């Protein structure tokens, strides 16, 4: 079995009375693609952000390979450099071109020389088919193009894993396709990914495992087929029924 890339044990995160992450344990192995789905407001984003240590969990441990990220002595910046994160609302650096967005961390975090960083950044942009837009600023691109640059930015450092928080849900429906295509390419390359998404056809195609997340906890996990045919839990059953109905309507 492939090596475990990321793992969390008994993770908790609360905001006042709202429990976003309730005693969640999870692991993902090299090359796996796992997809988290569930009702909005159930804490999926918080869970993902805790794994990336962009939100510090209240309790529990997060591991990136052998390194425990929740130990106080850990250099979180260094750790985050090994994790790619793609945001729902994209959040490109607005003052930098596509190339500048991808290049910045290569230069400032990995301390690559200028030429090498440029080459590496262009490579990442080619991968998401945005090399012709290298010199454009975020405001000059469509949402889908921006998100592809967002993916290139996460990818360029050769991270151990890429976490994607609803990468298509802020986009116009006609623009989701190009981002999904990019994710498909990454899947083919064997990229380890944890994706929060409700793109069910895509999930069925690439996910090794689907995770139904509700009220701050993992309710049910299994291969996509399980969820499409006969999920065990009542909640997952209901949610899938709604989702499939909605997809058909579209």
């Amino acid at each position, binding site marked *: 079995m492939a090596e475990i890339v990321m793992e969390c044990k008994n993770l908790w995160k609360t905001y006042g009375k709202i429990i976003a992450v309730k005693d969640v344990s999870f692991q993902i192995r090299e090359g796996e693609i796992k997809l988290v789905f569930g009702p909005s407001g159930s804490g999926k984003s918080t869970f993902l952000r805790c794994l990336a240590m962009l939100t510090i969990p209240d309790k529990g441990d997060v591991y990136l390979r052998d390194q425990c990220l929740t130990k106080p002595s850990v250099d979180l*910046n260094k750790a985050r450099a090994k994790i790619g994160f793609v945001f729902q609302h994209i959040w490109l650096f*607005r003052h930098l071109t596509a190339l500048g967005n991808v290049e910045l961390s290569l230069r400032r975090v990995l301390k690559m020389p200028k030429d090498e960083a440029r080459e590496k950044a262009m490579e990442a942009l080619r991968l998401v088919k945005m090399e012709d837009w290298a010199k454009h600023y975020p405001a000059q691109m469509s949402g889908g193009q921006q998100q592809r640059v967002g993916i290139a930015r996460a990818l360029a450092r050769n991270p151990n894993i890429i976490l994607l928080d609803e990468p298509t849900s802020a986009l116009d429906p006609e623009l989701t396709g190009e981002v999904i295509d990019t994710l498909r390419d990454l899947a083919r390359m064997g990229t380890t990914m944890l994706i929060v998404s409700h793109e069910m056809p895509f999930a069925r195609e690439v996910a090794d495992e689907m995770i139904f997340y509700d009220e701050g906890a993992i309710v049910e996990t299994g291969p996509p087929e399980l969820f499409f045919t006969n999920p065990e839990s009542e909640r997952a059953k209901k949610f899938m029924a709604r989702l499939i109905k909605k997809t058909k309507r579209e």
Partner: protein
Amino acid sequence: MSFLAENLPLIVDGFILTIEVTLFGIFAGLGLGTILAIGDIYGGKIVSTFIRFYVEFFRGSPIIVQLFISVYVIPAMFQTLIDPIIAGFLVFALNSAAYQKGYIKGAMQAVFEDQMQAGLSVGMSKPQTIVYVILPQALRIVIPAWSNEFCSLTKSTAALSILGIRDLTSAFQSIAIRSFRVLEAWIMCAILYLIWITIMTKIFDIVYEKKKIPGIEISV
């Protein structure tokens, strides 16, 4: 206009001093104002309380009172002498920093949270994100406000004349008294201020346009 030619050295010296003090004030104020803005946002309660007192003092009292305090009160308290010119330079820098802190803080908060998250997500530290992501955007947004600050700073430097410092206003004051050409002297003085302010605001406009990036603009 021969009285102007006769007094040319006086005018030139005064003009140069006014230019120096305004440029020093605006740039030192920018540097200090940026530090204060960062301190206010990230420094925690104690630092930001201290900064608030600082800002309120410099915004809440006339600049001429601040000048008197720096030239008469503080030296008396510490039994020393302060060169009024140095005191003048410092007061204008400190005063401008108090105003600029407000503009810069506002601009930083306007670009702030999502860009900080994005910066951290690629492995940059908070200070790195401030330097490479937040400030380049905030300083672009702040240029128009900065231009206004320069205008009012320049005009308030006329208060230096009361301390006996030879700035532009003080030069024309003595010219008006000595030559009895009150009308011409003061009109000339006003024109020179106008020229200096116009040149500099034009430069700020050009810098703003040149540094402008699609998506990071504000409507003034």
